[in-house]
């Protein structure tokens, strides 16, 4: 609309400037007067057209600047969201890595504790063996024989029973260790 108005005003100014000098005669006073009036009108039309055109150009520049600002805002927002999501992903990855290391630490601690239990069991067994061996040696010092010692410690009398055989094997193992 503004462009149409500017165009019409410009054409009117051009017409009012160029047409009257070649239509009217300068020798007739009324024609001469009308030439002056049309020239003034043409000047006014061109002045208004120029004013409108400059205003429209300024508005277009403002719109272009506004659009550029909106685009810049959108780009900034997108880049910010990308940065934030990247940071979130990085934090999640770091948490995951930290939890994995925690798990590894727990597994390592569990492994260490089970190793300690095993050593404790071995120690207890060794202590039991040494106590048993000491008892056997005390009984031998009293003059007890093998059958009597087995009867005294394991409560199994001499014979071919599996219990006696197991006790005899234990007796031999404990003394064999000594």
């Amino acid at each position: 609309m503004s462009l149409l108005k500017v165009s019409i005003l410009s054409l009117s100014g051009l017409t009012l400037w160029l047409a009257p000098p070649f239509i009217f005669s300068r020798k007739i006073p009324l024609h001469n007067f009308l030439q002056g009036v049309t020239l003034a009108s043409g000047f006014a039309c061109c002045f208004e057209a120029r004013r409108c055109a400059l205003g429209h150009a300024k508005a277009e520049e403002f719109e272009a600047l506004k659009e550029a600002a909106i685009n810049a805002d959108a780009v900034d927002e997108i880049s910010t969201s990308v940065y934030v999501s990247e940071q979130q992903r990085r934090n999640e990855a770091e948490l995951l890595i930290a939890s994995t290391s925690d798990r590894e630490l727990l597994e390592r601690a569990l492994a260490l504790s089970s190793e300690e239990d095993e050593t404790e069991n071995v120690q207890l067994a060794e202590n039991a063996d040494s106590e048993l061996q000491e008892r056997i040696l005390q009984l031998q010092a009293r003059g007890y024989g093998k059958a009597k010692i087995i009867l005294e410690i394991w409560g199994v009398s001499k014979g071919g029973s599996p219990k006696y055989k197991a006790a005899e094997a234990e007796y031999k193992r404990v003394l064999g260790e000594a």
Partner: protein
Amino acid sequence: MIKAIALGNNFLLTAIASSFLCWLASLHHSLLLFVQALFALKLIVSASAWLLDDAIIAILKIDLLQFRFRLIAATIGALVGAGVMLCRS
């Protein structure tokens, strides 16, 4: 487009003003002298502007090319406007 129209209207304004001055000059002998003096003044100002272009563009804060374009357009517009009124019937 709209800027080109604005520039064209600048040219038309100069030309119409020049034509109007020529029309005024045709009304009376004393007005003719006045208009001749105005055109002479315009000529002097234009010549000075051509010579002092560096200082003027520093004051007006415009490009040198733009300043020269405006000077040439104003001179041509004034000449065309005067020519139209001289060629009238």
